[in-house]
């Protein structure tokens, strides 16, 4: 025996529906009902608009009721009890065919092709009453719908018409995608051009993209607009510019013949209220009810009609209730030829009306804004349209992150990886077997472009160990490293800090059961080296995640460690990483820079990180980091300041003078204890001073010994004979050399400059980094 029907299972509901069918406020009078395989009710609904009239209905409860709604068919004649019983034994999908000619088509919107009516669905989750849609509500909608067919009054509905669905004949093998050029105002009628697209899924269905549109404006001037999008090469097979059309007419005519290119005429019209199916109705729409005017607007296709062209494509553009443009497209197909002889065109219309069959062609808005509309409220395209992100490493994590960012609408993506896709990659990778042995960046780029043609994707098949970030990252480009190799990431980290690029690092750990994601804004966040230092000193700010010995690295051939982890884990980590990056791109919130994902409770002892909750932290740079460390405080002794000032005062003729700074470093503080004078062999001038090196070195040695090795070389001081105390280009150059030279035992030399007004400024000049100024404390 078959499974039991819904009405055997939900008896109370069945009872209620049966009751409502015979006791409703919509004037539905039930003739008969049957509950065999399907539960059906047939009767009439009384509509009291103008002359009261009864409309026969068939109500079909689908097998999936109450999880799907009753279907209501409008009939020409009521069904006999026997007929209804027979239908009741059928599958619900056969009802429409079985009803055949008895279906009453109103040719009005919201009647579907199978004759049933559409509903306005509520999409609230966990509605009260689990959104059972009872028949009284349904009948009320039917009543309103029929009333609206009489009065023409709008139903409560979405602003978009979706009228296409309500045309009885439609082209089942093609769809037009309409780029922004189809929505530009100031055009009233003209010609449209569609080209077959590259991304069609099967041979039986063709997608076309609008490549060009011509339109007269109100003054009669023709404007031509061509569709140019970043990735047009993946969109349409045959771009078609105005010049192409003249130049390659023969080829293009062949393409038209093969329907690789579709060209048709379009008009702007007031409104299309209801579906239509004949040329006469087209004239009515064009003339807005005025036949003669409609006939005159038919002029652009007059020649084709006179010649009785096999197919004529038409497009209508109108404004919906929101005042936005909508399109409807139609194909007119010649049924048979007719010999008109010399009959005047105007008098052939009635015959032509019978010769042509009109069917609608599905179309969809295909603009940047519309394409990203479903991201609305979660990621705003306009905030990230201009953002640049480089994905460094396009493996299982990188390819997925790239795809998610692409779908989010990040404007410019760069893919960096020099590997090719191998069969063993596919199980966790975005790319499938079809693209084996292609470059990873090329194949990922292809897939991302296919997912979002409105963004710019670049591929760079390079090994970052062979390059400097300056070669592959733009100054404002954010990088995402998923390389998962300590050395390569270390190199990237050093490069990026020096070039000033922000980098995110994401790595799956313990077979994907955990993950560490962190961001490095140079100078603001702890860099990769800082984290190493924190780990080394056992600082709890860095949470170490031990490796899982049961899931060791699978292979490490040629320094390419492959670690286990399934797509379920890796996609999740990719999503989390992408989400963090999108949030940062959109809102710029940089209050956190380190995230740990754990699914096992490995931090049970500390209890600070709970499984399945993303743990977030802010980790500042480590003070000892050669890349980003900074002194917390700089202390300068009174005697140092006094010496400098008195030396400056002593120097005549506005010459410069200077000396060496000695002192010590503890923890994160710098102590300047001694300043030397210029020495006997100094060369002073108004724009520079050249120190007495021998004197300087002797003072260093002397103070080193005197202090038992406490006071060491820290940097330089000198005067400026002007009011400014900022480093000159010569100062910067010298300090850079000091920081880089092995002769000076510091990579962060300090520079004090005293102005003519005796103001002293302090700058630090770290190796390979921009110098920065820092306040100091005199004590």
């Amino acid at each position: 025996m078959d499974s039991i029907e819904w009405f055997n299972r939900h008896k109370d509901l069945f009872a209620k529906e049966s009751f409502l069918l015979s006791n409703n406020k919509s004037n539905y009078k039930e003739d008969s009902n049957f509950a065999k395989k399907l539960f059906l009710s047939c009767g009439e609904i009384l509509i009291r608009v103008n002359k009261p009239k009864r409309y026969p209905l068939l109500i079909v409860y689908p097998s999936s009721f109450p999880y799907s709604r009753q279907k209501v068919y409008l009939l020409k004649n009521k069904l006999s009890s026997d007929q209804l019983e027979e239908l009741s034994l059928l599958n619900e999908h056969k009802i429409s065919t079985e009803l055949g000619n008895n279906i009453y088509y109103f040719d009005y919107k919201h009647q579907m092709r199978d004759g049933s009516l559409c509903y306005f669905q509520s999409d609230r989750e966990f509605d009260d009453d689990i959104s059972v849609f009872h028949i009284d509500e349904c009948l009320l909608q039917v009543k309103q719908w029929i009333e609206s067919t009489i009065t023409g009054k709008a139903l409560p509905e979405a602003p978009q018409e979706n009228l296409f669905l309500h045309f009885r004949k439609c082209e089942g093998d093609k769809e037009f995608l309409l780029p922004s050029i189809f929505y530009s105002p100031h055009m009233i009628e003209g010609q449209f051009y569609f080209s077959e697209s590259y991304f069609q899924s099967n041979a039986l269905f063709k997608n076309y993209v609008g490549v060009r549109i011509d339109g007269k404006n109100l003054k009669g001037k023709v404007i031509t607009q061509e569709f140019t999008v970043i990735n047009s090469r993946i969109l349409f097979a045959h771009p078609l510019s105005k010049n192409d059309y003249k130049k390659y007419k023969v080829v293009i005519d062949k393409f038209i013949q093969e329907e690789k290119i579709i060209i048709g005429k379009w008009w702007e019209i007031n409104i299309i209220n209801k579906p239509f199916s004949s040329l006469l109705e087209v004239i009515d729409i064009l003339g807005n009810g005025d036949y003669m005017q409609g006939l005159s607007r038919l002029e652009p296709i007059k020649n084709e009609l006179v010649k009785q062209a096999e197919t004529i494509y038409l497009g209508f553009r109108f404004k919906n209730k929101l005042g936005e443009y909508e399109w409807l497209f139609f194909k007119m197909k010649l049924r048979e030829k007719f010999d008109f002889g010399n009959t005047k065109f105007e008098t052939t219309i009635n015959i032509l009306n019978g010769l042509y069959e009109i069917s609608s062609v599905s179309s969809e808005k295909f603009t940047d804004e519309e394409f990203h509309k479903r991201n609305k409220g979660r990621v705003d395209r306009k905030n990230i349209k201009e953002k640049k992100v480089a994905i460094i490493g396009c493996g299982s994590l990188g390819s997925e992150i790239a795809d998610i960012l692409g779908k989010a609408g990040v404007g410019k993506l760069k893919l960096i990886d020099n590997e090719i896709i191998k069969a063993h990659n596919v199980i966790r990778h975005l790319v499938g077997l079809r693209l084996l042995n292609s470059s990873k960046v090329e194949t990922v780029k292809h897939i991302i472009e296919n997912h979002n043609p409105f963004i710019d994707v670049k591929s760079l098949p390079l090994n970052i160990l062979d390059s400097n970030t300056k070669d592959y990252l733009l100054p404002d480009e954010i990088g995402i490293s998923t390389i998962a190799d300590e050395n390569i990431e270390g190199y990237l980290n050093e490069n990026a800090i020096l070039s000033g690029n922000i980098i995110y690092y994401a790595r799956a750990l313990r077979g994907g059961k955990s993950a560490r994601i962190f961001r490095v804004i140079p100078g603001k966040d702890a860099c990769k080296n800082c984290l190493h230092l924190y780990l080394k000193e056992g600082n709890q700010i860095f949470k170490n995640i031990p490796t899982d010995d049961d899931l060791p690295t699978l292979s490490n051939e040629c320094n390419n460690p492959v670690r286990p982890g399934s797509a379920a884990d890796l996609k999740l980590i990719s999503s989390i990483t992408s989400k963090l990056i999108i949030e940062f791109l959109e809102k710029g919130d940089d209050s956190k820079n380190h995230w740990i994902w754990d699914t096992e409770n490995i931090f049970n002892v500390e209890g600070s990180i709970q499984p399945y909750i993303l743990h977030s932290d802010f980790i500042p740079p480590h003070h000892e980091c050669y890349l980003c460390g900074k002194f917390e405080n700089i202390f300068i002794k009174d005697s140092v300041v006094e010496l400098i000032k008195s030396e400056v005062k002593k120097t005549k003729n506005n010459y410069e003078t200077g000396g060496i700074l000695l002192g010590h470093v503890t923890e994160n503080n710098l102590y300047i204890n001694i300043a030397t004078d210029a020495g006997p062999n100094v060369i002073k001038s108004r724009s520079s001073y050249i120190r007495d090196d021998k004197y300087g070195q002797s003072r260093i040695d002397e103070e080193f010994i005197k202090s038992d090795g406490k006071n060491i070389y820290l940097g330089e001081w000198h005067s400026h004979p002007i009011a400014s105390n900022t480093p000159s280009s010569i100062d910067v150059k010298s300090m850079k050399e000091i920081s880089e030279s092995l002769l000076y035992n510091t990579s962060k030399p300090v520079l004090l400059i005293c102005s003519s007004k005796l103001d002293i400024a302090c700058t630090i000049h770290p190796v390979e980094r921009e110098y920065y100024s820092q306040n100091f404390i005199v004590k």
Partner: protein
Amino acid sequence: MNKAQEIIIPAEKGIFRTIFLNVGQGDSTLLVIPEGDNYKFMLVDCNIDENKNEIDLVKMFKDLLGKEKLDYFLNTHPHKDHLEGIEDVHKEIGIKEVWHSGHKPKGKHSEEYKQLKSVIDDIGDKNVFEYSGSDSVNELDKGERILGDITYHVLAPAEHVCEDIEEGTADEQYARIHEYCGVIKFSYGNTPKSILITGDAEHDAWSNHITEHHKKHLKSEVLSASHHGSRTFFMEKEKDEPYTKHIENIAPDYIIVSAPKQKDSPHDHPHDDAMQLYKEYVDEENLFHLGENDECVIVDIDSAGNISVNPDSELVKHYGYKNESKKESSNSPSITSTISLNKSIDKKQFG
């Protein structure tokens, strides 16, 4: 927005809405008259008996109008069942303008007129309009007149009939009150649709003065049945040959009978024979007997001239008097008992 406003004021602009209110043994019809973007309200006759499920007009108007006054009160004739409670309405709500037929019962009959008179006295003569149809000089039809964006056409009383009646004694005058009764047609829409208010106008008023004179303008899509569905619309007394020329010319699509359930009517309104006659002109389901179903009927005419007719139970639910007259069995039978599909349970074996 409170319930009265929600139900009574059309959601769109430019709808002429007529609500036949359930008021038991009497008449009360509310006209919602479009005037540009706004609406004005006219109450045609008034009856407050305070029986269960009958509309509490004062409460309803308080919600509908807030601190505003009612724009118009139109009385078809000064009988108690067309005037009862109008003093309360005026006292609680206020009435700006009174329209009436001009009939003023005298002598012992003046009691009936008292309520209307007190309202008229209060608002002053300049706010009172005595309507009439054809004038007395040449019996010429005064034609359609404008009220807001709708039109109205007074078909009765004709001036010469009024003058004729006024000549009689107080008793004679009172006997002919239904001849002096207002019959008014309200129309709206590009292809105009009409509602005919008939008060208690009886067959002799129709046959003598109205039908022939106004044959061309009688056609109305909605007919408010005269005299609470009484046979007097068609005949003097039971079994007389019915007069039907008027309804043939009115040719209604919908008929509204304002009467309580027949068993609750002291006059057995509506009369069975009258209802039978009405059914010859409209289908049973387009003949609405307000008291029978304890409902009101809302008629909308849009600016294009589409008319739609819908019964309404919400007004009764929110503004009907709640007092129990007698214990009634619930109207809706228990749900499970209505299922007839499984006529009986089948045989089952148990071990």
